[in-house]
């Protein structure tokens, strides 16, 4: 079923002379995860703020859960939750008090608040800190509390603006699991990210946004196809990198390596590389995303076993 829960058509927004959104179109189907991927300043946060009724667009229309974001903000707010780019928690309250307050404001039934708050504190690993004032929390703890607050009321549509920024790899993986759970429960998720791996792991659809326009859209696999097929990459002794196209199968790779050996080429390292969203991103936006993000997600992801690409030996391409 492809009923669209989030629909945006030609969204425009400018601050003075600076055009921030230049006609953004988006569709997110019910139960889908859409990752809005883009470099700094691309307009991700602006898009999310318009969709969550915090900002009026200068032009274009958007509806969320069937309600127009400009004309029926109340109905939209009742259907969504927003976890913004910067933690929106009350520093003077404890973690538990924060969640209680948000639960009350989200109009959860009074009788279920206690249990629900306890559930989320557990889910986000915050039980031990629950009775401490948030002022004493670390950045990651604050972020987790922020995310917990966003998921309290089981919203139909969940907006997450760079949800894993500032989380350690374990928390990040935990959050990915939580998001998958939320989606399994039927929610629709629109998240923004600069972490390509995150889009790859979580999102059914990726929309690449740059300079206020959606410049590409598709499944991660579709996007990767646009930048070519898998290849064997050889770091030739004495410098230089050579790429040879492959279908990634064992016989084909063996054939290529045998060929290399027969030709007497000395190779330092080799790897089978499938195109990544990195490549897509580079190709489309002409710039690398934040390098720390790439380094972090590539190097330190502890659950490499779920990596879908048929890579035999992983080496990182020098940039």
């Amino acid at each position: 079923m492809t009923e669209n829960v989030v629909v945006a058509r030609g969204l425009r927004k400018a601050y003075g002379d600076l055009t921030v959104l230049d006609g953004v179109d988006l569709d997110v189907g019910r139960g889908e995860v859409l990752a809005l991927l883009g470099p700094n300043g691309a307009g991700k946060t602006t898009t999310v703020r318009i969709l969550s009724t915090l900002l009026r667009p200068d032009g274009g229309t958007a509806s969320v859960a069937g309600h127009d974001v400009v004309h029926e903000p109340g109905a939209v707010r009742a259907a969504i939750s927003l976890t913004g780019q910067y933690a929106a928690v009350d520093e003077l309250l404890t973690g538990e008090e924060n969640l209680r307050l948000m639960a009350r404001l989200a109009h959860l039934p009074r009788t279920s608040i206690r249990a629900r708050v306890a559930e989320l504190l557990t889910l986000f690993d915050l039980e031990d800190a629950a009775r401490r004032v948030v002022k004493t929390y670390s950045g990651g703890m604050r972020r987790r509390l922020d995310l917990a607050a966003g998921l309290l009321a089981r919203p139909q549509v969940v907006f997450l603006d760079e949800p894993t920024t500032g989380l350690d790899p374990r928390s990040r993986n935990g959050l990915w699991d939580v998001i998958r759970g939320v989606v399994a429960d039927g929610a629709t998720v629109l998240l923004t990210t600069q972490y390509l791996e995150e889009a790859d792991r979580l999102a059914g659809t990726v929309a690449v946004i740059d300079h206020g326009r959606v410049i590409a859209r598709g499944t991660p696999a579709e996007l990767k196809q646009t930048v070519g097929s898998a290849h064997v990459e050889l770091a030739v002794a004495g410098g230089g990198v050579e790429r040879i196209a492959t279908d990634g199968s064992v016989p084909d790779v063996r054939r290529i390596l045998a060929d290399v050996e027969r030709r007497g080429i000395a190779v330092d390292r080799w790897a089978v590389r499938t195109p990544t969203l990195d490549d897509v991103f580079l190709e489309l936006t002409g710039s690398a995303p934040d390098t720390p993000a790439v380094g972090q997600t590539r190097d330190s992801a502890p659950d490499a076993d779920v990596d879908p690409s048929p890579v035999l030996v992983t080496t990182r391409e020098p940039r």
Partner: protein
Amino acid sequence: MTATTLTTGPRATAPVPAAARPGVGDTFALVGRSLRHSTRQLDTVLISVLLPVMLLLMFVYVFGGAIDSTGRYVDFVVPGIILLTSGYGAAGTAVDVATDATGGIVDRFRSMPIRPTGVLTGHVAASLAKNAISTALVIGVALLVGFRGDASAGAWVAALGLVALWVLALTWVAVAIGLVASGPEAASGFTFAILFLPYVSSAFVAPATMPAVLETIAGYNPVTPVTDTVRGLLLGMPVSTGTWVAALAWCVGILVVGRAAAALLFRRAT
């Protein structure tokens, strides 16, 4: 993070369920939040309560003799101190509002199905509650140091009602200041205007004893008619119609302007 399921319970679906509409429960929750803030910032609250008490003692025992040698200066100054207390109580609200406005939490509130200005109402209600406590404390100390306080119950109610209205008006101005300010520190700085007002008014000395310029300023200072009305009521002296009408008009005027400015700034700032 441990489990992966969040799958229990019903999900809100369109059309909007009744529980999703704004209600008074939201405001109660937000008032509770602001009051809880006070308990987490006891130092700030203590200062806003203890400072007026210290000033009361100082005016009565240090300056009192010099200002009024009849020995009844305490009766004269207590109404002024009560209004000074209101200023301190209201000023704190500017800082609270600025803290909210510069953090991300207002965005979260605004994306929820609640009345957007509920967060401001919460701060204002909490300010009234805090002021009620500090005013009670100041009056208690005043009675201990010899304030007459033998006005009729009706006069007390009228006087305290006017003080409450004054607090409400000042608090909304403080909210507007909190929204204009670039941050809590700036907000705290701006509130000096509120705190300074009583000094150039009839709160501590009769304006007639001031230099001509200051006397004129005091005459136009809203604190003057409010103090005069409260003083008249509490000391059983006649209050001219002009005075109490001016006091009420100032309170209502400041309240309306402060509230409108706050609402406008809140919409613009967010």
